[in-house]
């Protein structure tokens, strides 16, 4: 293992993390809810419960609008998407099924769960990071 110093951005990543933490804190304290993205989105695909749709749509809409708001204040950072369409479809299916089956993703288990010291979330977070390590090792170093 070597460190990829050229793409290492500790300060902007820490600052971004703090902003994510602030949004999580606001949502918890004002709305009394967990800012878990897969749960918020997946709840829209369940049978309709009264009063349960508006806040979900609003949160997702805010998330979708965020790059437009960001670009008003600063140039958007460059991104690089190496995966092709087939990989993206496969990945999307796995992320959709896995996050709902496992009750959470990077935000719900990774941020909220670890903040609450939830043993369930610690296990889930360790496993999805481990599966990510193995997947990247296989795709990048074994067959890549």
């Amino acid at each position, binding site marked *: *293992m*070597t*460190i990829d110093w050229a793409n290492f951005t*500790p300060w902007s*990543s*820490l600052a*971004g*993390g*703090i902003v*994510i*933490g*602030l*949004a999580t804190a*606001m949502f*918890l304290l004002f*709305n*009394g809810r967990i800012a878990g993205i*897969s749960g918020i989105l997946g709840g829209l*695909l369940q049978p309709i419960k009264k009063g349960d749709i*508006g806040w979900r749509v*609003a949160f997702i*809409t*805010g*998330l979708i609008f*965020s*790059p*437009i708001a*960001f670009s008003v204040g600063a140039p958007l*950072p460059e991104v*690089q*998407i*190496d*995966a092709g*369409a087939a990989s*993206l*479809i*496969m*990945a*999307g*299916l*796995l*992320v*959709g*099924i*896995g*996050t*709902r089956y*496992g009750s959470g993703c990077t*935000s719900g288990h990774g941020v909220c769960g670890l*903040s*609450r010291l939830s043993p*369930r979330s610690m*296990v889930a977070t360790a*496993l*999805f990071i*481990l*599966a*990510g390590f193995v*997947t990247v*090792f296989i795709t990048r170093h074994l067959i890549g």
Partner: protein
Amino acid sequence: MQVLMAFITGLIFGLGLILSGMTDPSKVIGFLDITGAWNPSLLFVMGGAVLIAAIAFRFAKTRPKALLGDTMRLPTARQIDKRLILGGLTFGVGWGLSGYCPGPALASLAIGGSKPLIFVVAMLVGMAIFEIHDSRSRAHKCKAV
């Protein structure tokens, strides 16, 4: 009011994702590439977010109600079961294949062209497959009882 606050927090959450680098799949895969040229940036994202959120959760635990009047809804599930383990592993494989998890993919929709859109559509299909499967297995369980 709750809906407006949900919009604002979703917006701020997305700004944090963009600033942190989470919306760049190559950076996420750099973090997961532990045997290659490893990029530890994501540890700083998680550290910053957990630091702030942990304070909020400590405070929330002492309050029965949220500031806008709703019940404080904290997760109650405790069991580490097959669903949690298989779900976590399945998600991790998809995360490693693409570099996208749900939040950053949504926060890339408006600017990223067709790739995040393909991922998000597939993710919604995956979530729908789960819902159909889950409601069927629940109906089956009810019958069995």
